[in-house]
Every structure is written in structure tokens, then in C-alpha cells.
């Protein structure tokens, strides 16, 4: 990427809008909670599938890849919420839960990304 491509105003505006939209959807999904933060897990899986799909589907169009993968999928998924929930579960003595949550997040998100790459 050149400096002109990185700082292309259209890409910047697109990423900001898509990132905000993804974050708002994740925020709505985050209310789905139980034994684990199911809503965040689902958001991460959905975003990983979508990112894999978009990488292949928009292959060759850097603007759309940036907006959909970096913006929408990046905004919909979150790493910090995984860290926060895992530390808080571990701190409250539920040592087994963060391990399950981490394994589920890693395995299901990467599988979803693989399926997205396959179907894109």
C-alpha cells in the first residue's frame, strides 16, 4: 500500500462508518449472556465468517476489503471483551469458564473464518 492508498478519505470514512455500525450491532448482541458471554462469542464468530467471505468476495478491490474486513468485521468482533470477561471469570474463582470461553472463541472463530474463505 502507498501513503495515498492508506490515507484515502473514502476509505477512512467507510471504515469509520462500518466500524461504528459493527460496534453498535455487537453492543446489541452483547446483552445475550449466560454461563458464558454468548452474545460476544456469536458476534466474534459472525464477524470472522464475514471477514473470510469478504476477503475472497472483494478480492482485488482494496477499498471494499478495507471497509468490510477492517471496518465492519473489525467493529463487530472484539478482543478486549474476551480479555475482560476471561479475567473477571478467573478472578471470581471460575477457573474453568475462561478456559472454555477461550477455546470456544479460538476454535469457532477460526473455523468460521475458514468457512467464509471457502464460501467467498
Amino acid at each position: 500500500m502507498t501513503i495515498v492508498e492508506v490515507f484515502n478519505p473514502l476509505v477512512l470514512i467507510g471504515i469509520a462508518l462500518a466500524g461504528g455500525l459493527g460496534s453498535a450491532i455487537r453492543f446489541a448482541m452483547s446483552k445475550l449472556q449466560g454461563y458464558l458471554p454468548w452474545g460476544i462469542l456469536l458476534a466474534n464468530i459472525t464477524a470472522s465468517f464475514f471477514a473470510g467471505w469478504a476477503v475472497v468476495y472483494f478480492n482485488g478491490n482494496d477499498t471494499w476489503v478495507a471497509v468490510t474486513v477492517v471496518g465492519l468485521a473489525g467493529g463487530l468482533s472484539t478482543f478486549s471483551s474476551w480479555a475482560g470477561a476471561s479475567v473477571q471469570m478467573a478472578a471470581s474463582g471460575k477457573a474453568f469458564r475462561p478456559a472454555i470461553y477461550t477455546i470456544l472463541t479460538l476454535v469457532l472463530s477460526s473455523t468460521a473464518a475458514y468457512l467464509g474463505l471457502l464460501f467467498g
Partner: protein
Amino acid sequence: MTSRDFSLVFLGGSLGALLRYLIGGSLELTLGSSIAGSLSLLMVNVLGAMFLGLLNFHPRFSSESNKSFWGAGFCGGFTTMSGVALFLYQYPPLLAMPAAAVMFGFGFIGYAAGANLGRASK
């Protein structure tokens, strides 16, 4: 969940996603694409986890508005799990799996360190 909460999350998420992109782009321009992708992913995820830990316990960020904008919005938009999932397929498994383990480890420690820093500020 009010429309104000959604607006704040939207704005924070926009800012976070934009900053994540700019960090990745700047690193790519200076270091090249081979190392920039993994380094920026590690950087944003660990820093984002640390910042979320800090703001969850720092009195300055205790209001619901601050939690929506900075927590669910900015930190959520700044960090990415879909990037980690894609990263696992962009590099050979022998490199990607340990790198992901390091990221998860540092993310966990980063959040705990940020939380301790936030508690210490009370």
C-alpha cells in the same frame, strides 16, 4: 440500552476502527507488509485489552456514557477477533498458533494490568 448508548458506541467504535486501520497502515508503510500485519494485530489487541481494564476500574470512566463510548465503542472497535481468525490462515500454523497464544496471553495479562492500574487510581 437507549439510543444515546447506541450513538456513543457507534462513535467510539468508529474512532477505534479508524485508529486500528491507521496503526496497521502506518506500520505497513514503515516496516513492510510481511511484519506489519501481525505486529499491528498484537499491538491493538493488547493495548485495547489494557485500556479496557483501566477504564473498567478507573473512577474517571465510571459513568455509563464513558463505558459506552470508551468501553463497548472504542475498545471494542479498536481490537479485533476476526483479524486474529484471519491471521491464523495467513501464516504457517507453526508460526500462527504460537503467535495467537502469545496474543491471548498478553491480552489476558494486559487487561489484568490495566485493571490494577485503574484500581490504584481510586
